């Protein structure tokens, strides 16, 4: 018995020793759950077609990813972080504080945010203004005076007489999600700006402007449905009156079950998003520590695979997975920057 205990202890000792000693020889990627599906596809192809080990991709969220990313350099920190939003100055500062200075920013494409309902339900055609009025916490008073009141609208018809008289019920991402950030910025703010007095507020009181434009109602019309977009799709099928806000890739994958509403007259289609005419789409990024290139094997090759024509190109496999490719110019620029490993300009 004593011997068994000793053996166990010894084995453990060896394990701890070995692990503390191991050098990381694979790429570590963290970050946004939105970019996760794309970066995993690339990682998988990269692993299969090269001698390098397949990178490890963790879905930690954009912020969590950047936190890990900016924690320092060396093999204990990730090499690449995905983000569904651009890095913020505060994050760049933190990175710099921890010695992470040369960061390569790679824009990989767009993520359209679709506003969709069940394929069995009636097709909708809305404007950004409709969306703002339907979902904001505070809306301009109906009497036309420049005052803000708590959102009184119950049905779509209340918002805009041309819309059907169904109850407003929208399943969307929670505050912790980058998709919601993007939705607030692109759709809500877009609709909110159409009121001149609010737009004027932007320069006068930026905080108030943001609070008004980004504040989503909390009276039950907007349901924070978790980040599992798959589930939103299921729920939409179950409830034809409800709308969902989720990434374009989910719309495309489930186009038999859900249909995207036209926003400002534009349907959420591949082409409309790629050419920027669909209003609610955002860029996706990943950030690379330049310092790690040459330290962790395979980073350059991974970047090359990611930015290759067969991945990011118009007919690339990322497009198959639902990512909207960059325009040709932007793509060329990205390829060039990656090739030269040009870091972001220090602000």
């Amino acid at each position, binding site marked *: 018995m004593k011997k068994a205990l000793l053996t166990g202890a010894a084995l453990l000792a060896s*394990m701890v020793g070995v692990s503390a000693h191991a050098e990381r020889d694979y790429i570590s990627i963290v970050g946004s759950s939105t970019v996760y*599906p794309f970066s*995993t596809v690339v990682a998988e192809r990269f692993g299969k077609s090269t001698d390098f080990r*397949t990178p490890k991709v963790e879905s930690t969220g954009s912020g969590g990813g950047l936190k890990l990313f900016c924690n320092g350099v060396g093999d204990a920190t990730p090499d690449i972080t995905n983000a569904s939003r651009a890095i913020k100055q505060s994050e760049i500062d933190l990175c710099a504080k921890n010695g992470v200075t040369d960061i390569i920013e790679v824009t990989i494409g767009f993520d359209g945010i679709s506003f969709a309902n069940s394929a069995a339900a009636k097709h909708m055609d809305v404007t950004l203004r409709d969306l703002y009025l339907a979902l904001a916490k505070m809306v301009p008073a109906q009497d036309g005076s420049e005052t803000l009141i708590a959102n009184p609208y119950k049905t779509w018809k209340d918002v805009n007489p041309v819309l059907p008289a169904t109850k407003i019920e929208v399943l969307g991402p929670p505050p912790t999600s980058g998709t919601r950030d993007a939705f607030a910025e692109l759709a809500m703010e877009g609709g909110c700006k159409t009121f001149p007095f609010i737009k004027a507020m932007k320069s006068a009181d930026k905080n108030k402007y943001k609070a008004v434009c980004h504040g989503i109602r909390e009276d039950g019309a907007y349901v924070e449905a978790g980040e599992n977009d*798959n589930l939103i799709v299921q729920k939409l099928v179950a409830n034809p009156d409800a709308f969902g806000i989720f990434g374009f890739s989910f719309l495309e994958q489930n186009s*038999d079950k859900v249909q995207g509403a036209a926003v400002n007259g534009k349907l959420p289609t591949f082409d409309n998003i790629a050419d920027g005419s669909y209003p609610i789409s955002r860029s996706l990024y990943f950030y690379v520590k330049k310092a790690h290139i040459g330290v962790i094997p395979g980073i350059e090759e991974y970047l090359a695979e990611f930015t290759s024509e067969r991945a990011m190109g118009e007919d690339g496999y990322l497009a198959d997975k*639902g990512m909207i490719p960059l325009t040709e110019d932007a793509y060329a620029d990205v390829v060039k920057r990656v090739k030269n490993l040009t870091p972001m300009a220090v602000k």
Partner: protein
Amino acid sequence: MTKSSMTTREKVEKSMKRRRAAEQRFRMYGVASVLFGLLCLVVLFGDILSKGTSAFSQTVIETSITLDADYLGLDKNADDQQVRLANFEGLIKQHFKDMVQPDGRKERRQLYSLVSAGASWQLQNMVLNDRSLLGQTIEVALIADDDVDQWFKHDRGHAHNAMLNETQIGWLEQWAEQGILKTRFNTLFFVNGDSREPELAGIRGAITGTFLTLLVTFLLSFPIGVAAAIYLEEFAPKNKITEFVEININNLAAVPSITFGLLGLAIFINIFGVARSTPLVGGLVLTLMTLPTIIISGRAAIKAVPPSIREAALGLGASRVQVVFHHVLPLALPGMLTGTIIGMAQALGETAPLLMIGMVAFVVDVPAFISDPSTVLPVQIFLWSDSPERAFTERTSGAIIVLLGFLVIMNTAAVMLRRRLERRW
């Protein structure tokens, strides 16, 4: 003895109708409760089985394809790297283009999308293993795309399928009639690691990760748990400190598992610098989580050893340590093992704390060592349930079936062990 005119007997008889009804009702509640529990079990298993069994078959396209050495730019002496870079994908596209003669670029893309991205890796692996295949025409069963797989397994003959258009379905129907489109056992599901392509995704990585994680957990928690149980049951003086330790252990057994994740994140990863997403850190966290279970069951097993054996040995002049290691421990060991297996089964199903320590990762390579990045089966299930592709739903259920299978095996083992080794005093 009552003033009322009725006798006791009459009163009792009078109350009987009401009471019999109450009895029946109460009994029905009991039956209903048990049935409800069993129904839940049946529904749960039925739901998962009905969703998941189709994950064990996979649609393939059987065809003969010529491995054109010139097209691939390879000769018999090509090294592995050259083979990896060769354009097998183009070869397959070419093959199907010749076979179906699609019309225009759009149709070509539609045609190519019927075959999995994994098909080219299939060919690549064949050539990697045997260069002599170059230039030959071989019979292969190319893996079909997940949309085709779903259509062929579930939707064929049903209403219109949104993922495939009329043209594609036309080709597929034709192939199906020719017999080149068929399903076979989904070996890939068991030999592959994770993948973004549902038709290529497998659970071997997760299973290996689970195994390594549980190995770490077992190697740590069993000896420590047994030692702690022995100490508390046999040596600990009855004082405040011991009581404090006991309260601690009992409490830890009921503490939410997610707090162990917070602990792992803060202590193991941030302070000790153990690598994220590895079986090592997962095992450490799960060790702390299963220790209370093992200690508690270990103490129960030790308690079950009758004091007479202890007294007899002590009476013969053995020391406490000798008594414990020569007499008590061998008798209590089966019980302790059973408790450990149950603890391991718990650890096997645990997800929440692993979310905190980076096990929610996309890991394709099957981990070979406890410091390799890996995921575990429950987390794999969690990840897949979140994936947009429809085919992942059935794979999630398939993985659940496998997980439940493991749990059943472990619990059965525990029960068998208990039956076989249980001693009656």
